[in-house]
Protein backbone atom coordinates (compact mmCIF):
# COMPACT_ATOMS: atom_id res chain seq x y z
CA UNK A 1 0.00 0.00 0.00
CA UNK A 2 1.17 3.52 -0.75
CA UNK A 3 1.61 6.00 2.05
CA UNK A 4 -1.05 8.35 0.67
CA UNK A 5 -3.66 5.59 0.62
CA UNK A 6 -2.69 4.44 4.10
CA UNK A 7 -2.89 8.00 5.42
CA UNK A 8 -6.28 8.63 3.79
CA UNK A 9 -7.73 5.47 5.31
CA UNK A 10 -6.37 6.31 8.74
CA UNK A 11 -7.81 9.83 8.67
CA UNK A 12 -11.18 8.47 7.58
CA UNK A 13 -11.18 6.02 10.48
CA UNK A 14 -10.21 8.74 12.96
CA UNK A 15 -13.26 10.85 12.08
CA UNK A 16 -14.66 10.63 15.66
CA UNK A 17 -11.65 12.59 16.92
CA UNK A 18 -11.41 16.39 16.91
CA UNK A 19 -9.56 17.93 13.95
CA UNK A 20 -6.54 18.98 16.06
CA UNK A 21 -6.12 15.45 17.42
CA UNK A 22 -6.32 13.93 13.92
CA UNK A 23 -3.65 16.39 12.76
CA UNK A 24 -1.48 15.41 15.70
CA UNK A 25 -1.73 11.72 14.73
CA UNK A 26 -0.84 12.54 11.12
CA UNK A 27 2.16 14.65 12.17
CA UNK A 28 3.36 11.81 14.38
CA UNK A 29 3.24 9.21 11.60
CA UNK A 30 4.71 11.63 9.04
CA UNK A 31 7.65 12.31 11.34
CA UNK A 32 8.38 8.62 11.91
CA UNK A 33 7.92 7.94 8.18
CA UNK A 34 10.53 10.58 7.30
CA UNK A 35 12.90 9.25 9.97
CA UNK A 36 12.56 5.74 8.55
CA UNK A 37 13.12 6.99 4.98
CA UNK A 38 16.29 8.71 6.24
CA UNK A 39 17.43 5.45 7.78
CA UNK A 40 17.18 3.79 4.35
CA UNK A 41 13.82 2.02 4.45
CA UNK A 42 11.44 1.99 1.48
CA UNK A 43 7.86 3.28 1.41
CA UNK A 44 6.41 -0.26 1.24
CA UNK A 45 8.54 -1.49 4.15
CA UNK A 46 7.52 1.42 6.34
CA UNK A 47 3.80 1.08 5.60
CA UNK A 48 4.07 -2.67 6.28
CA UNK A 49 5.64 -1.88 9.66
CA UNK A 50 2.97 0.69 10.48
CA UNK A 51 0.40 -2.07 10.04
CA UNK A 52 -3.22 -1.84 8.93
CA UNK A 53 -4.80 1.61 9.31
CA UNK A 54 -7.74 -0.12 11.04
CA UNK A 55 -5.46 -1.45 13.81
CA UNK A 56 -3.69 1.90 14.27
CA UNK A 57 -7.00 3.77 14.40
CA UNK A 58 -8.48 1.25 16.80
CA UNK A 59 -5.55 1.67 19.23
CA UNK A 60 -5.77 5.44 19.12
CA UNK A 61 -9.56 5.50 19.41
CA UNK A 62 -9.70 3.03 22.29
CA UNK A 63 -7.09 5.01 24.18
CA UNK A 64 -8.97 8.18 23.39
CA UNK A 65 -12.18 6.61 24.68
CA UNK A 66 -10.51 5.94 28.02
CA UNK A 67 -9.26 9.43 28.48
CA UNK A 68 -11.74 11.43 26.41
CA UNK A 69 -13.35 12.88 29.50
CA UNK A 70 -10.02 13.86 30.99
CA UNK A 71 -7.61 14.79 28.24
CA UNK A 72 -9.83 16.83 25.97
CA UNK A 73 -11.47 18.53 28.91
CA UNK A 74 -8.27 19.22 30.81
CA UNK A 75 -6.06 20.01 27.84
CA UNK A 76 -4.64 23.42 28.45
CA UNK A 77 -5.63 25.97 25.83
CA UNK A 78 -2.79 27.08 23.63
CA UNK A 79 -1.17 30.26 24.88
CA UNK A 80 -0.78 32.99 22.32
CA UNK A 81 1.83 35.72 22.30
CA UNK A 82 0.63 39.34 22.29
CA UNK A 83 1.41 39.73 18.57
CA UNK A 84 -0.52 36.55 17.76
CA UNK A 85 -3.45 37.72 19.87
CA UNK A 86 -3.60 41.10 18.13
CA UNK A 87 -3.33 39.39 14.74
CA UNK A 88 -6.11 36.96 15.61
CA UNK A 89 -8.42 39.67 16.95
CA UNK A 90 -7.83 41.93 13.92
CA UNK A 91 -8.21 39.01 11.50
CA UNK A 92 -11.39 37.93 13.28
CA UNK A 93 -12.81 41.44 13.19
CA UNK A 94 -12.00 41.93 9.50
CA UNK A 95 -13.44 38.55 8.57
CA UNK A 96 -16.46 38.18 10.79
CA UNK A 97 -17.54 41.64 11.95
CA UNK A 98 -18.98 42.75 8.56
CA UNK A 99 -20.71 39.39 8.18
CA UNK A 100 -22.19 39.55 11.68
CA UNK A 101 -23.33 43.18 11.22
CA UNK A 102 -24.93 42.29 7.87
CA UNK A 103 -26.72 39.28 9.36
CA UNK A 104 -28.04 41.27 12.32
CA UNK A 105 -29.12 44.19 10.08
CA UNK A 106 -31.02 41.77 7.84
CA UNK A 107 -32.69 40.09 10.84
CA UNK A 108 -33.69 43.51 12.19
CA UNK A 109 -35.04 44.80 8.86
CA UNK A 110 -36.94 41.58 8.16
CA UNK A 111 -38.39 41.78 11.66
CA UNK A 112 -39.47 45.38 11.09
CA UNK A 113 -41.12 44.47 7.74
CA UNK A 114 -42.91 41.58 9.47
CA UNK A 115 -44.15 43.98 12.18
CA UNK A 116 -45.25 46.48 9.50
CA UNK A 117 -47.22 43.63 7.92
CA UNK A 118 -49.09 43.17 11.21
CA UNK A 119 -49.85 46.90 11.32
CA UNK A 120 -51.05 46.85 7.68
CA UNK A 121 -53.31 43.88 8.51
CA UNK A 122 -54.82 45.71 11.50
CA UNK A 123 -55.34 48.88 9.41
CA UNK A 124 -56.90 46.83 6.60
CA UNK A 125 -59.25 45.14 9.05
CA UNK A 126 -60.18 48.51 10.57
CA UNK A 127 -60.79 49.96 7.08
CA UNK A 128 -62.97 46.98 6.13
CA UNK A 129 -65.20 47.59 9.16
CA UNK A 130 -65.08 51.39 9.12
CA UNK A 131 -65.64 51.95 5.34
CA UNK A 132 -69.31 50.87 5.17
CA UNK A 133 -70.15 52.68 8.41
CA UNK A 134 -68.47 55.87 7.19
CA UNK A 135 -70.12 55.43 3.76
CA UNK A 136 -73.59 55.06 5.32
CA UNK A 137 -73.08 58.10 7.55
CA UNK A 138 -71.84 60.31 4.70
CA UNK A 139 -74.55 59.02 2.33
CA UNK A 140 -72.35 57.28 -0.24
CA UNK A 141 -73.86 54.66 -2.54
CA UNK A 142 -73.80 50.91 -1.68
CA UNK A 143 -71.42 50.27 -4.60
CA UNK A 144 -68.80 52.69 -3.18
CA UNK A 145 -69.15 51.09 0.25
CA UNK A 146 -68.68 47.56 -1.15
CA UNK A 147 -65.69 48.71 -3.20
CA UNK A 148 -64.12 50.18 -0.04
CA UNK A 149 -64.78 46.95 1.91
CA UNK A 150 -63.02 45.06 -0.90
CA UNK A 151 -60.09 47.43 -0.70
CA UNK A 152 -59.93 46.93 3.09
CA UNK A 153 -59.93 43.11 2.72
CA UNK A 154 -57.16 43.33 0.07
CA UNK A 155 -54.97 45.50 2.32
CA UNK A 156 -55.66 43.09 5.19
CA UNK A 157 -54.60 40.11 3.04
CA UNK A 158 -51.44 41.81 1.77
CA UNK A 159 -50.55 42.68 5.37
CA UNK A 160 -51.06 39.06 6.47
CA UNK A 161 -48.86 37.67 3.66
CA UNK A 162 -46.20 40.30 4.34
CA UNK A 163 -46.07 39.60 8.07
CA UNK A 164 -46.11 35.80 7.64
CA UNK A 165 -43.41 35.70 4.92
CA UNK A 166 -41.08 38.08 6.72
CA UNK A 167 -41.68 36.40 10.07
CA UNK A 168 -40.50 33.08 8.56
CA UNK A 169 -37.52 34.80 6.90
CA UNK A 170 -36.54 36.49 10.18
CA UNK A 171 -36.86 33.23 12.08
CA UNK A 172 -34.68 31.16 9.71
CA UNK A 173 -32.11 33.92 9.30
CA UNK A 174 -31.82 34.18 13.09
CA UNK A 175 -31.44 30.38 13.41
CA UNK A 176 -28.85 30.35 10.62
CA UNK A 177 -26.86 33.19 12.17
CA UNK A 178 -26.92 31.50 15.58
CA UNK A 179 -25.67 28.24 14.05
CA UNK A 180 -22.90 30.04 12.14
CA UNK A 181 -21.75 31.95 15.22
CA UNK A 182 -21.85 28.81 17.40
CA UNK A 183 -19.80 26.94 14.77
CA UNK A 184 -17.22 29.72 14.58
CA UNK A 185 -17.03 29.89 18.38
CA UNK A 186 -16.50 26.11 18.55
CA UNK A 187 -13.67 26.33 15.99
CA UNK A 188 -11.57 28.43 18.35
CA UNK A 189 -10.78 25.25 20.37
CA UNK A 190 -8.95 23.78 17.39
CA UNK A 191 -6.53 26.70 17.25
Amino acid at each position, binding site marked *: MKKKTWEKQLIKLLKPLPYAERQSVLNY*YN*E*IYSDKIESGMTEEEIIAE*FGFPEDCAQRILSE*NGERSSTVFAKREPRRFSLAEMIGLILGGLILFLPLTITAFSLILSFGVVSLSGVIVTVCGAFYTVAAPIFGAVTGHSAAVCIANVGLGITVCGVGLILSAVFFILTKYLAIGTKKALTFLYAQRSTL
Partner: protein
Amino acid sequence: MDAQLKKGLLDVCVLAAIRKEESYGYKIISDLAPYIEISESTLYPILRRLESGGAVKTRCSEHNGRLRRYFRITQVGLKRIDEFIETMEQFKVISDFIAQGDRK
Protein backbone atom coordinates in the same frame (compact mmCIF):
# COMPACT_ATOMS: atom_id res chain seq x y z
CA MET B 1 1.13 -10.57 30.38
CA ASP B 2 -1.81 -8.80 32.02
CA ALA B 3 -2.97 -5.91 29.80
CA GLN B 4 -2.97 -3.31 32.59
CA LEU B 5 0.43 -4.44 33.85
CA LYS B 6 1.87 -4.28 30.32
CA LYS B 7 0.38 -0.82 29.82
CA GLY B 8 2.07 0.45 32.98
CA LEU B 9 5.31 -1.27 32.04
CA LEU B 10 5.34 0.31 28.56
CA ASP B 11 4.70 3.74 30.03
CA VAL B 12 7.73 3.41 32.31
CA CYS B 13 9.86 1.98 29.48
CA VAL B 14 9.12 5.06 27.37
CA LEU B 15 9.90 7.31 30.34
CA ALA B 16 13.18 5.44 30.86
CA ALA B 17 14.07 5.95 27.20
CA ILE B 18 13.89 9.72 27.61
CA ARG B 19 15.29 9.89 31.15
CA LYS B 20 18.88 10.76 30.16
CA GLU B 21 18.06 13.10 27.32
CA GLU B 22 15.09 14.23 25.29
CA SER B 23 14.15 12.00 22.39
CA TYR B 24 11.74 11.62 19.47
CA GLY B 25 9.30 8.94 18.30
CA TYR B 26 11.53 6.91 16.00
CA LYS B 27 14.50 7.00 18.40
CA ILE B 28 12.37 5.92 21.36
CA ILE B 29 11.15 2.87 19.41
CA SER B 30 14.70 2.04 18.27
CA ASP B 31 16.19 2.47 21.76
CA LEU B 32 13.55 0.22 23.31
CA ALA B 33 13.74 -2.45 20.56
CA PRO B 34 16.43 -4.61 22.26
CA TYR B 35 14.32 -4.78 25.45
CA ILE B 36 10.70 -4.62 24.48
CA GLU B 37 8.86 -4.56 21.16
CA ILE B 38 6.81 -1.42 20.75
CA SER B 39 5.10 -0.40 17.52
CA GLU B 40 4.42 3.11 16.25
CA SER B 41 0.71 2.75 16.84
CA THR B 42 1.39 1.59 20.42
CA LEU B 43 3.78 4.43 21.14
CA TYR B 44 1.47 7.24 20.04
CA PRO B 45 -1.23 6.67 22.68
CA ILE B 46 1.47 6.19 25.34
CA LEU B 47 3.11 9.51 24.52
CA ARG B 48 -0.26 11.29 24.49
CA ARG B 49 -1.17 9.69 27.81
CA LEU B 50 2.16 10.62 29.40
CA GLU B 51 1.88 14.16 28.04
CA SER B 52 -1.65 14.65 29.35
CA GLY B 53 -0.56 13.23 32.72
CA GLY B 54 2.26 15.77 32.91
CA ALA B 55 4.98 13.08 32.86
CA VAL B 56 6.53 14.43 29.66
CA LYS B 57 6.82 17.79 27.98
CA THR B 58 7.19 18.30 24.25
CA ARG B 59 8.82 20.76 21.93
CA CYS B 60 9.13 20.94 18.16
CA SER B 61 12.44 21.51 16.49
CA GLU B 62 13.54 21.69 12.87
CA HIS B 63 15.39 18.72 11.45
CA ASN B 64 16.36 18.42 7.76
CA GLY B 65 13.76 20.98 6.74
CA ARG B 66 10.90 19.38 8.65
CA LEU B 67 9.57 19.53 12.18
CA ARG B 68 10.42 16.88 14.70
CA ARG B 69 8.70 16.55 18.06
CA TYR B 70 10.98 16.01 21.03
CA PHE B 71 9.84 14.56 24.36
CA ARG B 72 11.50 15.30 27.65
CA ILE B 73 10.79 13.81 31.06
CA THR B 74 9.39 15.94 33.90
CA GLN B 75 9.59 15.56 37.68
CA VAL B 76 6.24 13.75 37.52
CA GLY B 77 7.77 11.28 35.05
CA LEU B 78 10.86 10.72 37.17
CA LYS B 79 8.65 10.07 40.19
CA ARG B 80 6.70 7.49 38.18
CA ILE B 81 9.92 5.61 37.40
CA ASP B 82 10.86 5.57 41.11
CA GLU B 83 7.39 4.37 42.06
CA PHE B 84 7.58 1.62 39.44
CA ILE B 85 10.95 0.39 40.72
CA GLU B 86 9.56 0.37 44.26
CA THR B 87 6.52 -1.64 43.14
CA MET B 88 8.77 -4.10 41.30
CA GLU B 89 10.84 -4.63 44.46
CA GLN B 90 7.65 -5.44 46.37
CA PHE B 91 6.66 -7.79 43.53
CA LYS B 92 10.05 -9.50 43.83
CA VAL B 93 9.42 -10.23 47.53
CA ILE B 94 5.97 -11.63 46.74
CA SER B 95 7.34 -13.55 43.75
CA ASP B 96 10.06 -15.14 45.94
CA PHE B 97 7.44 -16.09 48.51
CA ILE B 98 5.25 -17.67 45.80
CA ALA B 99 8.24 -19.54 44.34
CA GLN B 100 9.22 -20.92 47.78
CA GLY B 101 5.65 -22.00 48.45
CA ASP B 102 5.71 -23.82 45.15
CA ARG B 103 8.75 -25.85 46.16
CA LYS B 104 7.26 -27.07 49.47
